[in-house]
């Protein structure tokens, strides 16, 4: 009660006016980073390795105790995570919250795979979290975001589809359903390369053993399992086109799912990573501020800028955090997530999910 009153005072308009223009959090953080009136910060309280098979990228589940400002999350939502990864730099990336849906101020977990892709700089946050982070490390969070969530009233029979690391939001949904004691039926299809790289392997095995209305199919492509297709779905889930379905995974899986559900309104999707090179090559990509011009190769503007040696500001690289927002002075761009195109001059675009179509100029 006393805490709540303190919070209400700190969030009052009077305090905001007194602390203008910096805001009260700029002062509180000087006392203790875990004191906040608006922003969300957290400390790592546990790091649990999920996969540490030789040769496979490490995967770890990180438990975070947030400040009282954390409003909780719904199963399937994601959060921006900013960490000082060394050399005075903070890196921010988006991760799915992997634990059961939670209330304000409750601990949350994120499950992180160490990325070895081209963006794995020394400041890679996934490498930091899986290899160097320790209990007590401070992290900067957003509130939980995203509408890839379960409804409050879950239908009698639902289908969950995931691929690779796309399992995290789906796992959060499954765990929440179990806690809510959902009485209906869940069909869960998960594609992964092989058994030794399977995240949450023990927990999945336990769920399979118990049954309890969960029909689990784990398909390891390295062992010759078939990929997602209408035929496979019809066989495993008869009448699937009428069942509410949630799918999260790489672009290939999402596209296969969209093809299988075409013409229905049953499917909700979330890209785990935006499609790469989804654009059309051709024309010239101009970076006006630095005076560089490259041949448009169809990749996102962020990728093309980095390939040209520029270092534009960026964050999640999947169109969520808006930190790469840049002014496009001319040209047509396609949003790789929605497929929408736009050619307004002087438009603010997220360059991580925009591919140029023909000549294009941005202020980079």
């Amino acid at each position, binding site marked *: 009660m006393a805490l709540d009153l303190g919070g209400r005072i700190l969030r009052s308009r009077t305090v905001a006016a*007194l602390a*203008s223009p*910096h805001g009260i959090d700029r002062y509180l953080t*000087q006392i203790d980073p875990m004191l906040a009136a608006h922003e969300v910060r957290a400390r790592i309280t546990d790091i649990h390795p999920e996969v540490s098979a030789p040769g496979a990228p490490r995967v770890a589940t990180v438990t975070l105790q947030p400040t009282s400002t954390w409003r909780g999350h719904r199963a399937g939502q994601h959060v921006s995570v*900013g960490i000082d990864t060394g*050399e*005075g730099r*903070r890196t*921010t990336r988006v991760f799915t919250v992997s634990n059961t849906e939670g209330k304000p101020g409750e601990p949350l977990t994120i499950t992180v795979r160490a990325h070895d892709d081209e963006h794995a700089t020394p400041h890679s946050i996934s490498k930091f979290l899986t290899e160097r982070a320790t209990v007590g490390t401070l992290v900067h969070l957003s509130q939980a975001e995203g509408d890839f969530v379960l409804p409050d009233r879950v239908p009698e029979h639902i289908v969950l589809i995931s691929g690779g690391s796309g399992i995290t939001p789906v796992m959060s949904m499954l765990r929440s359903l179990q806690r809510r004691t959902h009485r209906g039926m869940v069909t869960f299809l998960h594609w992964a390369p092989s058994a030794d790289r399977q995240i949450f392997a023990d927990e999945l095995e336990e769920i399979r053993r118990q049954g309890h209305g969960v029909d689990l199919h784990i398909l390891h492509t390295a062992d010759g399992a078939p990929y997602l297709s209408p035929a496979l779905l019809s066989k495993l889930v008869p009448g699937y086109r009428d069942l509410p379905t949630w799918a999260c995974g790489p672009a290939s899986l999402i596209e296969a799912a969209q093809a299988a559900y075409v013409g229905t309104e049953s499917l909700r999707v979330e890209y785990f990573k935006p499609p790469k090179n989804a654009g059309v090559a051709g024309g010239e990509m101009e970076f006006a501020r630095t005076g560089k011009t490259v041949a448009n190769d169809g990749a996102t503007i962020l990728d093309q800028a980095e390939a040209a040696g520029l270092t534009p*500001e960026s964050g999640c690289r999947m169109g969520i955090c808006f930190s790469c927002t840049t002014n496009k002075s001319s040209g047509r761009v396609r949003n790789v997530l929605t497929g929408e195109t736009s050619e307004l001059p002087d438009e603010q675009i997220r360059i991580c999910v925009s591919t140029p179509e023909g000549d294009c100029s941005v202020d980079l």
Partner: protein
Amino acid sequence: MTTVENTGNRRLSAEELEAFGAEMDAIRQRIVADLGEKDSAYIYDIVKKQRAFELAGRALFYLPVIGWVPAVACLSISKILDNMEIGHNVMHGQYDWMGDPDLNSRMFEWDNVCPSDQWKYSHNYIHHTFTNVLGKDRDIGYGILRMDEDQKWHPYFLGNPIYAFLLMIFFEWGVAMHDLEVENIVAGKRKMSDNAELHRGLMKKVKRQALKDYLLFPLLTGPLAPLTFLGNGVANLVRNIWAFNIIFCGHFPAGVASFSQEECEDETQGHWYYRQLLGSANITGGRIFHIMSGNLSHQIEHHLFPDLPARRYPEIAEEVREICERYDLAYNTGPLHQQLWGVFKKICKYALPDRKRPVADRVQAAPALEEVAA
């Protein structure tokens, strides 16, 4: 003309300009590659100190009589640090590489009536791109003063010293009004309606600043409210006077060159550096002085590398001076009193109409750079 010829500087050939630019680029690349922990620790420490001075200042107003002077001093220091070493430099993007939204040029707002987005346009874009280009750089005289021979004289400018004094007293308001381009409205080049959007943003910021400094914080000190009100006003005044003096010493001491628009058409990167160097002047002083000036005491290095963290300017300065010697270019620096005297003389000189003399004479008679530190 106050152009390059009569500042004692020689013009560089195209090849020399290119080599000169390459040397500057090399400094920049080396510093960028070296940015890290030390720079972030420095700015976090300055922010911590600024917040501490601010809290101390606000708190000391509760101490009747003996608290007032220290309170004003703390609050003045807080506002100066906030506006200069933190605000000005953060809004230049000097700390964007840190990835901290609190120190990001797009997000930062300063303790000053001028809204940061408006200041960034007129300062970062107009002033830093067109530095000392007549007719382009509106920071030459801020639209109210005559600071260069090539600004046409008018009886209005007889008031030059008075306008400068008023600008100093009301500097934050001058900076805020700067973006409204009142002189261009008077000249009919700009419509009042062009300012509607700017005016809205400005009034919002002004209200917020006035609310805390002149209403809420005074009220919080109860019976001492009038003293707190006065103290907050004095702290804003101290910041105004200090910032005005530092900034005027950056571009208007004797020997600083200005450029015509023709000279800067299709400008190369080398010539841009050359213009920044000759269009700026430094102030010598100790470490605390440099911090309190937001390192704008290194105006030359700031203009050459506006987006490098300002704490690096002293180390860069040594290299820049060495390069200037090799290219036989003036490096304009001197103690505060000397640079201020130069500014003062200029303000008075240009209040009066030019004495008509043949061009050749004028070049001959023009003063050489007063003090070029070796």
